């Protein structure tokens, strides 16, 4: 893309061409480039080659799973019924996608329209994260074609998973509607855009409700397994609130991380508004994340104190707990605080990446590593790892595809000119 720019070629960024004609869908899909130009830039992109390798290996493995059963690609463990697909795909992707409801609330509920340049990125991050969490779930379920059963056929309303299922489904549709405004703009469907915009507050409020509950519910799922999850990662009264609170820095830091990657690799797609505002927005999001992290730390210690689990600190598991807390919660908090205080955007970004890894570690600890701590450690099957990586690569590819096209990082010029 950079190379094309030197030839004076600009990507499509308005509903009308310079000469006043409308863009066709095909032209929009090709970013306003000719087919040759488009293929040329796609081939020059090294990430595409990496994706090609991953897909060449991974997609056959995913097909293999559906032809030869779950047992063929996992260890089919009775003691670890949930492996990487849920441990990573569901329990990590969902908190990292909490960004949608938070930025939605900031802009729409609290009326902080100065955060608008990042709002759509946060909404899209939420939508894609949830969508791919469901993709992971479909790979993991024994009978994925029955996914709608808890909705329409057979109800188990006392189950936490029932709540998770309902809320993720409803929230996913709320997010589709929220992001659809960008899509309607892109295809030029003004009435659809206006219709959705009118319901914004309603959509945002339902987003907050649903997010509060199912972020917490993912934690509450482990309350069914007292004794299986190590006590340091288990707290009957606080599990849901720990998962909910940690999802706040998780979502915010994920937006910082994604915007960092975007500003370094897709700057051509960002408009001036996004680029000029990103620095202060990064610091502002970092503030939110830092507040979330400090609340989370206090809650973590309250949880240990409440169940009087101090003795576990002096065991091997205690050391692992401290590793997670010091390296991926307290250290990023310190980095973020220093970065905020001295207005160092770069440091805030490092802190954000660390926080994201911290969330990954925490969820994997709860779901896999500190799970069955009295039995043995499950190491996922290598095909299971390949599938998890492949789906993640599809996630990134989809993310990039949408960012390159829809007005997420830029504003349609026709509207900016108003």
């Amino acid at each position, binding site marked *: 893309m950079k190379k094309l720019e030197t030839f004076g070629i600009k990507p499509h960024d308005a509903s009308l061409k310079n000469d006043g004609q409308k863009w066709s869908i095909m032209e929009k899909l090709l970013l306003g480039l000719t087919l040759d130009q488009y293929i040329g830039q796609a081939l020059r992109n090294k990430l595409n080659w990496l994706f090609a390798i991953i897909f060449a290996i991974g997609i056959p493995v995913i097909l293999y799973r*559906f032809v030869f*059963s*779950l*047992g063929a690609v996992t260890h*089919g463990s*009775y*003691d670890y*019924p*949930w492996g990487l697909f849920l441990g990573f795909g569901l329990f990590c992707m969902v908190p990292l996608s909490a960004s949608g409801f938070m930025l939605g609330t900031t802009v729409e*509920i*609290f*009326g902080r*329209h100065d955060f*608008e340049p990042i709002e759509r990125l946060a909404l899209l991050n939420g939508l894609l994260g949830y969508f791919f969490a469901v993709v992971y779930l479909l790979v993991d*379920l*024994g*009978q*994925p074609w*029955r996914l709608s*059963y*808890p909705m329409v*056929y*057979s*109800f*188990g*309303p*006392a*189950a*936490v*998973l*029932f*709540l*998770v299922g*309902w809320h993720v489904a409803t929230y996913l549709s709320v997010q589709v509607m929220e992001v659809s405004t960008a899509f309607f703009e892109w295809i030029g469907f003004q009435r659809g855009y*206006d219709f959705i*915009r*009118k319901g914004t*507050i*309603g*959509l945002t*409020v*339902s987003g*907050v*409700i649903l997010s509060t*509950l199912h972020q*917490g519910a993912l934690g*509450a799922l*482990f*309350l*069914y397994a*007292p*004794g*299986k999850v190590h006590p340091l990662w288990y707290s*009957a009264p606080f599990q*849901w609130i720990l998962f909910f609170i940690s999802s706040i820095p998780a979502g915010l830091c994920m937006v910082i991380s994604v915007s960092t990657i975007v500003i370094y690799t897709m700057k051509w797609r960002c408009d001036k508004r996004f680029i000029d505002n990103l620095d202060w927005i990064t610091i502002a999001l970092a503030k939110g994340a830092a507040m979330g992290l400090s609340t989370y730390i206090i809650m973590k210690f309250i949880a240990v104190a409440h169940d009087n689990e101090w003795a576990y600190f002096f065991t091997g598991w205690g050391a692992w707990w401290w590793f997670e807390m010091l390296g991926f919660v307290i250290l990023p908090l310190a980095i973020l605080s220093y970065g905020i205080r001295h207005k160092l955007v770069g440091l805030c970004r490092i802190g954000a990446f660390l926080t994201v890894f911290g969330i990954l570690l925490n969820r994997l600890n709860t779901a896999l590593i500190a799970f069955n701590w009295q*039995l*043995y450690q499950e190491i996922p099957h290598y095909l299971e790892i390949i599938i998890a990586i492949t789906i993640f690569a599809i996630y990134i590819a989809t993310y990039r595809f949408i960012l390159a096209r829809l007005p997420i990082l830029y*504003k349609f010029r026709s*509207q*900016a000119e108003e």
Partner: protein
Amino acid sequence: MSKITRRKFLAASAAGGTAIMMAPTKKAFAAGSFEGFPDGMGVLVDLTRCVGCRTCEAACNKEQQLPEPAKPFDDYSVFDEIHHGQKRRTTDKAYTIVNRYELKDTEEPLYRKIQCNHCNEPACLTSCFVNAYKKTPEGAVIYDSHVCVGCRNCMIACPFHIPAYTYHSVLNPVIKKCIFCYDTRLKEGKPPACVESCPQQVMTFGKRKDLMKIAHERIKKNPGKYVDHVYGEKEVGGTGWFYISNAPFEEAGFDVHLPKKPIIDNVKDFLAIVPVVLTVWPALFTGFHLLATKGKSHGHGDDHSHDEQGGH
């Protein structure tokens, strides 16, 4: 401007209301506590009598029409099998198994039969989001494979590590576990196949409440023989199958740290939050919105609803 405010308020309320309707009463089954059906059947297992002959395993295999095992039922080398540092457990091909445990104080090993304990308030049942499990009035915990989605939450929830899954089935993977021979025997009041087959009369079949009395009497009448504890009387809210033993239960591989209350009790705190959030949040956040945006533009920066409505 007030017109827009009211419209947005209504929209928010409607969305909140819809969210409530879309989340049916989650508390319905969670409230209260359930101590089992009064006439539910149970089995008392006296570990002191078991000699590890594995006859019960064979009987179960036959009754439930399970595939032939890799090693025959009279092969006692299975007691030495260790997988991932663990002794044998129930699988999709074996609903009950017997394990041998070496004790600290005596030379004699102790044998323990493992199968579904048919809890009074089963964790598998309460964790299932399609309600595939059922606790029958006869005392069995049974499972309907036709609604199972395959999330395997029940396997996470079971405190005894009992349910197994047919991972290798492509089109119809299901949970497999002991069902107290419900279909073929219990429904007609007959004892399960394993109980009937036992040559040592390790297991006594009867009403749970009667058996509990027998268990305590047996402990009282034989001073020094038994540990003074009936495992399964209180554990996780009480189980249909329960055990008495001459050795401390932890030496026989039992989890002695299980809570006395049903597993679902851990989750009730969270379930109680649900209706609170559903009802309070819409008003709270719509209120925040009104407070935060009073006197400011209600619209989006790039929103032209203002101009349009002004134009009508």
